[in-house]
């Protein structure tokens, strides 16, 4: 392959200027859209047209200048064992990353980049300081070569030929083992069985945010419409309300189908050279390379509908040293069937049939504790509401509280019943869930530290909680198990960690 002299400073592809400009424009629009909306919809006064014209011209000039300068001053190079990126014209920033510390190199392509034939390359590192370098506009070939160069310099050696071909359809899978390929049908199934209640709440949240932003820009006039809206709602019959609820649910379903398809279109997961390679997306094509050794926790989730359809959702958590878990570090695959689950676990753990111990359940006192805790929260909230609004002091309120308590009882009973763990020579499995089930799996030797927690009340009853800390930045809690079991579990895990010479990442 043609070799690029990486020790010399490189700039991104000239066409990338457009991307820089688009990014700047996007940032401006994101910050200033309410103002712009007001300007557009306000009756225009002839005398001000000129002003707007010149503002637009000057704005465009600044965007152009800013993109040009940002583009020009963004340079990257590889010197010795460091990847160096310099950027900024007013405030100059030099980022340097020890190549050995690079965690993953991801290549992504959004729709604009697809048109321009460019890709972005993200370099994720482990380090106390969250260093992440993002090249947003480089040619595919350059990205491929850079990825290769970084892989060959770092001692990971996990980047492989097959990960390099950005065109998913031509992927050379001879050396690779395909594990998952999701069809549109799978995606629709996954979307339909999503938790729509949660999505609805999110939509309400977003609408509310949108509304408050709008009402700030338009003052008065919006409130008038809302008031009208509320009056109309009050005049609705029960039939209409049921209809509206059903309609909203269907709407939420359609939204999530579209969202899922756009995000996970043509998802492929395959294994090659000790890495999982993941490819998905309709407009934003993402290619992710997950070295198997860096996976810390995997989590399987299902809910009653998914159980019926026979699949689970997979989340993969990789090592991250930053205090905050980055969004990208949690990778999820919306649908996996039983065989795929087995295949993934086999690749990850290096064995197909773990020999687990008996499932060990949580002590009943755990249920009593969480029930009392949540009841206290509900009751004190209810009490303070009733005290502040005497109208609420009615038997309906008490029925409502009773119903809430019953719901809580049912949910927490499920939560208690589903809490358990079991252990294999190499793997710890922790089960939880309320309506759905979730299973977390971690390899014993990848645990970072362990805490044995016991309050004096727990000591009286002979129970303890084990908390296991992982390099994925999250911890796994095994609450309220018998003291002896907890001590035994801790000793066993410590024995496994301390006797292991394997790299945990």
């Amino acid at each position, binding site marked *: 392959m043609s070799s690029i002299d990486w020790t010399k400073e490189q700039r991104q592809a000239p066409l990338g200027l457009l991307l820089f400009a688009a990014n700047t424009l996007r940032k401006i629009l994101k910050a200033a859209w309410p103002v712009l909306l007001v300007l557009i919809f306000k009756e225009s006064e002839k005398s001000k047209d000129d002003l707007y014209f010149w503002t637009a011209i000057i704005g465009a000039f600044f965007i152009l200048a800013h993109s040009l300068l940002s583009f020009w001053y963004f340079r990257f190079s590889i010197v010795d064992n460091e990847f160096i990126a310099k950027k900024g014209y007013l405030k100059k920033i030099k980022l340097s990353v020890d190549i050995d510390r690079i965690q993953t190199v991801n290549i992504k392509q959004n729709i604009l980049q697809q048109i321009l034939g460019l890709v972005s390359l993200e370099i994720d590192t482990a380090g106390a300081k969250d260093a992440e370098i993002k090249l947003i506009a480089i040619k595919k070939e350059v990205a491929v070569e850079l990825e290769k160069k970084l892989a060959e310099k770092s001692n990971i050696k996990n980047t492989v030929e097959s990960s390099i071909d950005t065109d998913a359809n031509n992927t050379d899978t001879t050396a690779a083992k395909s594990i998952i390929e999701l069809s549109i049908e799978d995606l629709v199934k996954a979307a339909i069985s999503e938790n729509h209640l949660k999505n609805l709440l999110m939509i309400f949240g977003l609408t509310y945010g949108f509304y408050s932003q709008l009402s700030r820009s338009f003052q008065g006039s919006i409130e008038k419409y809302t008031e009208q809206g509320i009056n109309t709602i009050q005049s609705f019959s029960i039939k209409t309300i049921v209809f509206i609820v059903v309609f909203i649910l269907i709407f939420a379903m359609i939204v999530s189908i579209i969202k899922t398809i756009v995000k996970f279109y043509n998802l492929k997961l395959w294994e090659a050279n000790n890495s999982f390679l993941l490819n998905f997306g309709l407009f934003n094509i993402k290619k992710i390379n997950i070295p198997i050794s860096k996976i810390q926790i995997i989590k399987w989730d299902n809910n009653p509908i998914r159980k019926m359809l026979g699949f689970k959702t997979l989340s993969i958590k990789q090592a991250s040293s930053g205090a905050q878990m980055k969004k990208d570090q949690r990778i999820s695959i919306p649908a996996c069937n039983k065989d795929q689950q087995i295949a993934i676990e086999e690749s990850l753990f290096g064995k197909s049939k773990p020999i687990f111990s008996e499932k060990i359940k949580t002590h009943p006192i755990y249920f009593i504790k969480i029930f009392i805790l949540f009841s206290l929260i509900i009751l004190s909230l209810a009490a303070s509401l009733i005290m502040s609004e005497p109208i609420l002091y009615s038997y309906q309120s008490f029925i409502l509280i009773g119903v809430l308590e019953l719901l809580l009882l049912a949910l927490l009973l499920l939560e208690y019943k589903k809490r358990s763990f079991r252990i294999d020579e190499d793997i710890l499995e922790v089960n939880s869930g309320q309506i759905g089930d979730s299973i977390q799996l971690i390899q014993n030797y990848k645990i970072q530290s362990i805490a044995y*927690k016991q309050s004096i009340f727990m000591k009286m009853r002979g129970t303890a909680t084990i908390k296991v800390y992982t390099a994925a930045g999250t911890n796994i809690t095994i609450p309220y198990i018998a003291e002896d079991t907890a001590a035994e579990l801790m000793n066993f895990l*410590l024995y496994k960690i301390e006797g292991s010479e394997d790299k945990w990442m």
Partner: protein
Amino acid sequence: MILDNKSVSIDDLPKLNSEDFIPIESKFRTYLLLRNSLFFIIPFIGIIALHIFSVLADNIWLQYTLYSVVLLLWLYSITIVILGFSHKAYILRNHDIVYKTGFIFRTTTVIPKNRIQHLEIRQGVLLRIFSLSKLVIYTAGGNASDLSISGLKPDVAEKIKEEISRKIATNE
């Protein structure tokens, strides 16, 4: 390289007996009492100021409540320190370091030496006056799993740090 507990069976591992633990320096108790009391001086001064400038003159009950809340919190923190101090202890074992703390909510944290990222010795102004140090042990498990053992003699902290650093170096 071969780890020496590779062939050891799990039953031979040292069990965590409380008599093996090394207690924290007893002057650290005085330090904690002083530090917590200093912490409560600020709100106390605030309330006294409110009293003197009679901001709350028309609500004498609120004033008394504030006094008693701060006083009770202060008493609570002192009680916890006095009762819980004997539970603060650590032990450096062949392959890990163990630290236990807490009175009502007791936690025993174990960090295997081969999972330690780096170590730090810190000494704040107040700690320096007591000529004590704080050893902070970082793992890749995130902030929540970082362990800090405060109230060590500076030379002890240094010794533990060296001991663990040596172990980390030979592991790599």
